[in-house]
């Protein structure tokens, strides 16, 4: 470690985040490497290191001969200040080398409020933040992840985006780069070649025209790029790379355990949920493969906990078989099994008891809306009876805490729906009083967030409630919330900003840059978020944020993300929206295929819902 870095580490919080050297990190002899990648997570180490996608793509890249992929996280502001003062550029944790000299800089896009951190990290690396100002071939700045399905707000900064699952396409981009580098091709020529790879989106090859009122008039592909970029998926989940060997952090992170991905996609079709649409179609792993991967991952890492992670874990068909197989190994090895993402309607106590032999922790459910009408409108097909039954059994069985998650500001919501949340909380509270077996009673927590309309969902055309309206609804809810129930709510300010960037076009990039120059970063962290600075940035950039967040868009309007496709047809989204406005439900994909179109992405066209 160099002395400059050693000196600043003595002054910053949690220095272990910045040193590397963890068990399982890849360290190579540079003479064997021809392609160096900086995998950047635009948030702190503790959060980035908890991300399964990063573990997969990090491990997979390092298994490619000649490739060295290193991890980079956003330094906390105390570290950033020290780095800037000492003249230390952003470096890879594995080698300590400045990433500006690498071949690739990859960003994973998980959350709109981390966009300022992306600009900040490019700047900390010592590079110009705009793609057009980076003239050379390397480093190629690339991004993927769920937010790439509306890449437009980042279009001027990122050289190319990858849509969908990166396991195969990343390797193809690396090969394309290697060939271009050998042939001394220009950056422009490399991008032209890369744009022919399925799933690659080169934003500079698309020309956008606008009407005077601000709506998009046309989006035209140039340089031979496809008119619509369709996402990539993995066909066979049993054969896809799974990182049995992961970096095991020495210092504490958020999700510090083995994570097993049971399936990709979701059968449910909740109309507000972007993940439920963009990860389609459903593809499962078999229990044998999962059991084996889980055990091997524990043995390799020394972790004493496995968590089953997928969008709706209890929808996995062979969940019992899987849990039994894992528990057979886990129990004699002091290893816990945890099951997040349970639904109140197919929740199995038998399963829960099996998994939580000793400690009965809390239960968490997300009814999302307070009345059956609104739950039907958003297609969250949970009935109050199901929730009530599940909770009664849980309370009688000795469970001590119940957490309920809701949203306000959903399309079609009335004040009655808002008050419905409080009423539902009241009924659960009464039920707990009557049936709780635990002497201490049941602690009920209600958490309410603000709805953010997302691209590629049936609500992509809907306007978000204004901040004032959301605050009014929060107050209304507070007035009706029963005593004895803990009520948490989210600040509408950050949800508003999230809405602007979730459905922004490439013009909002100017506001993003201005906000970053005003010092905005870590916007997802309450202690740093400043709506005042953001409003100033919008004003100087000549951007009306309400145009993006609060305006309802016509269904025939060209949306900024129309040329980016997750495989679900717009026709399906329109149909679902119509049904939402009639409070009509759509049964899950297992009951009946909804014809969303994502099955076309599969060889053979058969979805494994």
């Amino acid at each position, binding site marked *: *470690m160099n*002395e400059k870095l*050693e*000196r600043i*580490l*003595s002054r910053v919080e949690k*220095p*272990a985040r*910045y*040193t*590397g*050297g*963890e*068990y399982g990190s890849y360290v190579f002899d540079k003479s064997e490497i021809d392609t160096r990648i900086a995998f950047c997570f635009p948030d702190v180490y503790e959060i980035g290191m908890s991300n399964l996608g990063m573990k997969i793509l990090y491990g997979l890249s390092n298994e490619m001969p000649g490739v060295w992929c290193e991890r980079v996280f956003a330094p906390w502001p105390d570290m950033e200040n020290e780095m800037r003062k000492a003249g230390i550029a952003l470096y890879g944790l594995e080698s300590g080398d400045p990433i500006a000299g690498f071949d690739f800089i990859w960003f994973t896009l998980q959350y709109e409020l981390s966009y300022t951190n992306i600009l900040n990290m490019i700047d900390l690396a010592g590079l110009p933040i705009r793609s057009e100002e980076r003239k050379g071939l390397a480093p190629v700045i690339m991004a993927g992840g769920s937010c790439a399905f509306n890449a437009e707000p980042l279009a001027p900064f990122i050289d190319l985006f990858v849509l969908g699952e990166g396991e195969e396409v990343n390797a193809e981009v690396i090969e394309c780069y290697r060939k271009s580098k050998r042939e001394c091709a220009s950056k422009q020529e490399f991008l032209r070649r890369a744009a022919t790879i399925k799933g690659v989106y080169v934003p500079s090859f698309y020309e956008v025209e606008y009407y005077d009122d601000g709506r998009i008039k046309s989006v035209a592909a140039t340089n031979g790029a496809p008119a619509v970029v369709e996402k990539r998926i993995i066909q066979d989940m049993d054969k896809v790379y799974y990182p049995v060997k992961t970096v*095991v952090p*020495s*210092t*504490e992170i958020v999700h510090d355990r083995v994570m097993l991905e049971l399936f990709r996609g979701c059968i449910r079709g909740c109309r507000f949920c972007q993940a439920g649409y963009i990860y389609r179609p459903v593809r499962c792993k078999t229990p044998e493969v999962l059991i084996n991967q889980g055990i091997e991952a*524990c*043995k*390799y*890492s*020394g*972790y*004493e906990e496995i968590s089953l992670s997928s969008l709706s874990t209890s929808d996995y068909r062979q969940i019992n078989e899987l849990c039994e197989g894992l528990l057979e190994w886990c129990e004699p090895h*002091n290893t816990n099994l945890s099951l997040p993402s349970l639904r109140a309607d197919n929740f199995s106590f038998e399963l829960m008891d099996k998994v939580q032999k*000793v*400690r009965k922790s809390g239960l968490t459910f997300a009814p999302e809306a307070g009345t059956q009408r609104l739950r039907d409108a958003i297609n969250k097909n949970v009935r109050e009876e199901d929730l009530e039954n599940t909770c009664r059994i849980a309370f009688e069985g000795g469970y001590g805490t119940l957490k309920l998650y809701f949203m306000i500001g959903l399309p079609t919501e009335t004040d009655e729906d808002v008050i419905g949340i409080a009423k539902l909380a009241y009924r659960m509270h009464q039920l707990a009083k009557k049936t709780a077996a635990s002497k201490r009673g049941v602690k009920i927590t209600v958490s309410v967030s603000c709805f953010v309309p997302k691209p590629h969902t049936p609500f992509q055309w809907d306007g978000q409630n204004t901040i004032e309206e959301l605050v009014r609804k929060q107050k209304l809810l507070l007035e009706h919330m029963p005593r004895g129930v803990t009520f948490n709510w989210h600040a509408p300010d950050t949800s508003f900003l999230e809405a602007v960037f979730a459905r922004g076009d490439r013009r909002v990039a100017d506001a993003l840059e201005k906000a970053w120059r005003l010092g905005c970063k870590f916007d997802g962290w309450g202690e740093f978020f400043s709506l005042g600075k953001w409003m100033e940035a919008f004003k100087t950039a000549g951007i009306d944020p309400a145009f993006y967040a609060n305006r309802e868009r016509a269904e025939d309007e060209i949306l900024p993300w129309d040329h980016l496709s997750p495989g679900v047809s717009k026709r399906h989204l329109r149909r679902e929206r119509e049904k939402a406005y009639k409070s009509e439900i759509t049964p899950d994909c297992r009951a009946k295929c909804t014809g969303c179109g994502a099955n076309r992405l599969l060889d053979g066209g058969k979805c494994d819902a």
Partner: protein
Amino acid sequence: MLKLRIMFSKSGTAAYLSHLDVMRTFARSFMRAGIPLRHTEGFNPHPYLSIAHPLPVGFTGGREILDCEVLAGDAGSVKDRLNASLPAGLEVLSASAPVKPVSDIAYAEYRIAYLYDSKMPDRAAERLNAFFSSPVIKVKKKGKKGPVEINLPDYYKSVEFSKVSDRELSAAAVMTVANAPLNPIYLTRAIFEDDLRPDFSRCHRTGFFDSDMVPFV
């Protein structure tokens, strides 16, 4: 069941691991090495591991002590198997049955490097030696109920500076650990002559001694 005393070193990037980080890392390394540890019973079983006088974050250590109880296996293979499972900077030097209880530790020896960015003052080592040989040096120490004043020489047996180069001094400090061990950072804080304060210091604990100054194993 086998009680084991692991002597280990902590260097490089591992210097930045906190006490809890080191405990967690060792627990996982035992798992990775396939050496089962005795766990506590109850809701949240955790392994029996204890580290004597944990090092502050940022310090390196030459001969640190970890006591543990393994359920199976022999002391002979533990060292190699653990070393294959530990991250960079943590290395097991020996694993054997403990001879004396950790409470017999009376002193800890530190090597402290003082670095001066511009040339260090004349006769710096001599001046510092004179300063630390004074019987009374009052410093403020963070206590549980706010700052308390302590007499620094009560916490060390000897502090001896020597010149390494034009910009570096090295101190050998033998600190008492019997009752209330003191972070040797307080030695630096006590220096009131500004020119003698280093621009950066590095702290390494070489090991422990019993009350007769016999190296503790």
